[in-house]
């Protein structure tokens, strides 16, 4: 009896919360803490109570509750978004003092910029931009015009950027970027966000004019309520707000223009990009006013702050979203400093500008050259996603040129071949897919790119073999339409050569990226340059063959007919593309020999690894190339043979 009373007492103590967690039908919750304690006392050291299905290894993957690295639901300050709002974590308006209200909203704008840059750099939206309580409940801000319009444009911008990156599917090491579970990204009427912004901009412009006007005119413009009440600070605040609002406007326009298919909006986008950069400069300049002009004090340690003024913004809490962030373990992230964020956007805009200035070269060679050059500036994910979406649209180059046409042009075939039926064959469909994949891979980050390029070498080899087979069949068959057969044979021959050329190009990119990624130790440079040299020999061979069978004459600029003698001489010279490759070859060969000579004569740069031999390292580095026989008959012994007699002494030459 007493036990039952005690039991009920235990139960009712917990009742308010637990009663909302139902037990089964006709069952109750029984407190077993005393029983557990007693059982645990009787267990021996290291003993556990578990069933037959218990597996220690599987149990190790259990999330530990209350461990900040594993438990994303730890209740810190607020249990929920509503609680935070009720507690006044995100007041609207931000302050009843208009000056503080304006100051605070500028801080929020700056912090959001820093969050956005942090998001772009590879973190989740939930922990960055959407740590803003105002954004999570946008409707609450409708009474505050500036805050409301700014939040709307941020939401619309984020949505646009997520859309581009998702379309491109530019895989990065961690696909955190486009995770938007449970985040309110879809806003009704966000397309009109710019009209809200324009209205707000207009008002602030008038307020700026009013405060700058000499006092006699002021009486006339008295009907404009000032932005805030401290007249000395009015001009500074108006300007600070204006450049921030205008930046967002132009940035949103840039994204919208760049999304237009086939690069139609690029010219317009460039204008907006230029405006963005100007506004960013103004934003940077406003920092001095916001830091010193307002409170007259100088804050040290401003470098790390996420706002221009150095103050902490109100209305942000990253933990509120942690539960909806992702099933991955929580991670503490550091929001970029405001200065770094501005620098990030300047770079992003420059990269986008390069894309917008691209001439949409219909030749594949031109595309590859452009992409390789663009990647040298180490563009970030958002810029690269835009490039990929431009290059590959609806399975066509720029959404304009069908892939088969691109291939025939690259293979130096006459233009009418682009309509040939052979494009419908299995081989050519696959080849088209390979080309599209290659273009997409070239837009990814260096590490991912190298990995994927290594993998596709095998695919390109396979397609070569298949095309070779097709050619043999075509040549063997006697078709009723002799012209058609001749054409398909010609197409196959040209494309075969081009596929080889392209394969060697991919191999050379694979090797070169290894340098960019610091994958080779100095003792391995010799073998890498040697391999590069043999690949380049083949590449030059194939390129030369393509040029030789090309029907197009080498283009001359502005030469008239009467210079015909000179022209003839010029035509017999080597094509610039071949010359360039030959330069590369010579460089690679020279470096190989120099490094080999240094090793042979002076014993420098020797492999000192006790774990594996030079041959093993050779095989490790070039495994993917060797598997795909790129090039054929190349092996470690041939490397040794080529380099063992290299000497520094000039007399050998």
């Amino acid at each position: 009896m007493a036990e039952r009373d005690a039991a009920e007492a235990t139960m009712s103590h917990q009742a308010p919360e637990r009663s909302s967690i139902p037990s089964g039908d006709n069952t109750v919750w029984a407190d077993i803490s005393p029983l557990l304690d007693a059982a645990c006392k009787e267990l021996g050291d290291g003993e556990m109570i578990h069933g037959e299905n218990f597996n220690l290894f599987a149990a190790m993957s259990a999330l530990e509750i209350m461990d900040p690295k594993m438990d994303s639901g730890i209740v810190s300050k607020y249990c929920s978004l509503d609680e935070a709002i009720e507690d006044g974590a995100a007041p609207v308006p931000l302050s009843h003092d208009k000056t503080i209200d304006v100051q605070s909203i500028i801080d929020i704008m700056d912090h959001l910029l820093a969050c956005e840059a942090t998001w772009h750099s590879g973190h989740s939206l939930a922990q960055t931009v959407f740590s803003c309580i105002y954004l999570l409940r946008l409707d609450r801000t409708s009474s505050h015009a500036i805050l409301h319009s700014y939040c709307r444009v941020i939401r619309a911008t984020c949505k646009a950027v997520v859309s581009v990156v998702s379309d491109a599917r530019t895989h990065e090491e961690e696909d955190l970027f486009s995770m938007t579970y449970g985040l309110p990204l879809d806003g009704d009427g966000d397309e009109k966000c710019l009209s809200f912004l324009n209205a707000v901009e207009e008002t602030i412009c008038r307020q700026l004019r009013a405060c700058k006007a000499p006092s006699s005119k002021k009486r006339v413009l008295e009907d404009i309520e000032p932005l805030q009440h401290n007249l000395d600070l009015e001009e500074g605040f108006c300007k600070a707000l204006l450049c921030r609002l205008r930046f967002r406007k132009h940035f949103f326009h840039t994204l919208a223009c760049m999304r237009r298919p086939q690069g139609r909006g690029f010219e317009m986008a460039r204008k907006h990009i230029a405006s963005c950069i100007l506004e960013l400069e103004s934003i940077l300049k406003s920092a001095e006013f916001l830091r010193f002009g307002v409170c007259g004090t100088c804050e040290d340690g401003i470098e790390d702050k996420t706002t221009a003024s150095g103050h902490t913004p109100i209305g942000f809490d990253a933990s509120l979203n942690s539960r909806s962030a992702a099933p991955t373990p929580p991670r503490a992230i550091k929001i970029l400093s405001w200065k770094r964020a501005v620098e990030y956007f300047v770079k992003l805009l420059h990269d986008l500008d390069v894309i917008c200035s691209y001439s949409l070269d219909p030749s594949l060679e031109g595309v590859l050259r452009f992409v390789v050059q663009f990647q040298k500036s180490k563009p970030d994910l958002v810029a690269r996603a835009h490039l990929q979406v431009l290059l590959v649209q609806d399975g066509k180059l720029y959404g304009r040129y069908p892939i088969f046409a691109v291939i025939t042009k690259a293979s130096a075939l006459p233009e009418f071949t682009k309509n040939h039926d052979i494009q419908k064959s299995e081989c050519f469909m696959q080849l088209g897919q390979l080309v599209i994949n290659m273009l997409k891979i070239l837009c990814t980050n260096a590490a991912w790119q190298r990995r994927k390029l290594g993998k596709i070498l095998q695919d390109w080899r396979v397609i070569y073999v298949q095309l070779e087979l097709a050619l043999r069949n075509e040549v063997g068959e006697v078709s009723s339409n002799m012209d058609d057969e001749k054409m398909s044979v010609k197409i196959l021959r040209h494309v075969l050569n081009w596929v080889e050329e392209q394969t060697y190009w991919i191999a050379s990119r694979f090797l070169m990226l290894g340098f960019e990624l610091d994958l080779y130790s100095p003792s391995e440079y010799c073998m890498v340059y040697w391999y590069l040299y043999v690949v380049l020999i083949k590449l030059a061979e194939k390129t030369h063959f393509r040029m030789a069978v090309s029907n197009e004459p080498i283009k001359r600029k502005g030469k008239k007919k009467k210079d015909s003698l000179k022209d003839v001489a010029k035509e017999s010279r080597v094509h610039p593309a071949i010359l360039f490759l030959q330069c590369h070859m010579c460089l690679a060969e020279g470096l190989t020999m120099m490094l080999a000579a240094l090793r042979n004569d002076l014993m420098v740069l020797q492999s000192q690894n006790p774990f594996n031999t030079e041959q093993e390292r050779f095989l490790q580095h070039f495994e993917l190339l060797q598997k795909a026989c790129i090039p054929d008959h190349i092996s470690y012994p041939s490397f040794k043979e080529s380099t063992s007699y290299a000497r520094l002494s000039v007399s050998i030459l």
Partner: protein
Amino acid sequence: MEQKVETTETLVESSAGSDTKGSNHISRVRKLLCRRMLVGIKDGRFFLGSFHCIDKQGNIILQDAVEYRSTRRTSPSPMEQRCLGIILIPSSCRTSCHVDCSIDEQLSLLKVDQ
């Protein structure tokens, strides 16, 4: 590990003669394995899952756990829930532990031999 389990059982069996209370508590807890267990922790959250394992320190592993959390700290309010999978609840943060059972069984579970 299988051997370890058997040794444990033989240990318990062999000590059964000398210490009836020990094997009684442990075997009763063993009978609760795979039952629905509700664990409350310090910050006010509750976890409902299948009882999978407990060690000498009192750390509990639950399978297919669901986290329950109140949306307001102070006043009573609806609970939010989400699924977590397999979790480990350290004994240091555990404040309560209940098992889903029939009313008849409840009495026997509350009984602890002294």
